[in-house]
């Protein structure tokens, strides 16, 4: 490809590394019988609001700023996720947070 790339004046771009991608999912439909643990959680309590997956560089105030337009509203997110956030200064990429309605 290098030769052809040179001939046609094209330069190969390095392929991005997607090895650290985190994926997940859930459904309102139940899992098939006997399928074992699934990515879906049919017995999870129904809550209002949205979910948000934490990425590197996030903080509760940053998420609050983005979701509500007000960084000062971070305690609202903290309170809704007390079961998974032990310290409001420590959240981790991949954590799935519930974002209550503003």
């Amino acid at each position, binding site marked *: 490809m290098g030769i052809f790339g040179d001939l046609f004046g094209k330069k190969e771009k390095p392929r991005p590394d997607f090895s650290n991608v985190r994926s997940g999912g859930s459904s309102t439909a139940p899992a098939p019988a006997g399928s074992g643990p699934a990515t879906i959680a049919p017995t999870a309590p129904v809550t209002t609001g*949205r979910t948000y*997956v934490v990425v590197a560089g996030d903080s509760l105030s940053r998420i609050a700023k983005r979701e509500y337009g007000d960084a000062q509203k971070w305690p609202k997110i903290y309170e809704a996720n007390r079961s998974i956030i032990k310290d409001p200064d420590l959240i981790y990429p991949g954590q799935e947070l519930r974002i209550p309605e503003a």
Partner: protein
Amino acid sequence: MRMHQYARALVGLVLAAAPFGCSTSKPAVQTGLKVTHIDVGRSVTAEKTIAEKTDSFRPADTFYVSVATDGSGPSATLTARWTYQGGQVVDESRQDIAPTGSAAVTEFHLSKPDGWPTGEYKVEVLLNGASAGTREFKVT
């Protein structure tokens, strides 16, 4: 001689009818399940629908695709196949569901801790291995 002609005609009729007999005895594999909606966005509601639809993301965003299905079946597999710049596979996720008749919604999400490369992305949704639709979006 006439008996032989009747016998030959009878054999011919049986052979001609055989394929129809076989086809009706096959078990039905259709579940009646179909994909009715595919949406892409930045977040989902508790009902798994997209809260903020978009086709333009930022590198720090999480991609969400919400797939609405209608119908029922004992087991069906939904797959989300994410690709970058026309071919590089980013991820492929599957979920097995057993919808009970009413409309169901399934969401898939994808994040990258160090941020998404800018460019064109596509998510293809498959129902039991058959393509049910695609959505294209970009990261800028």
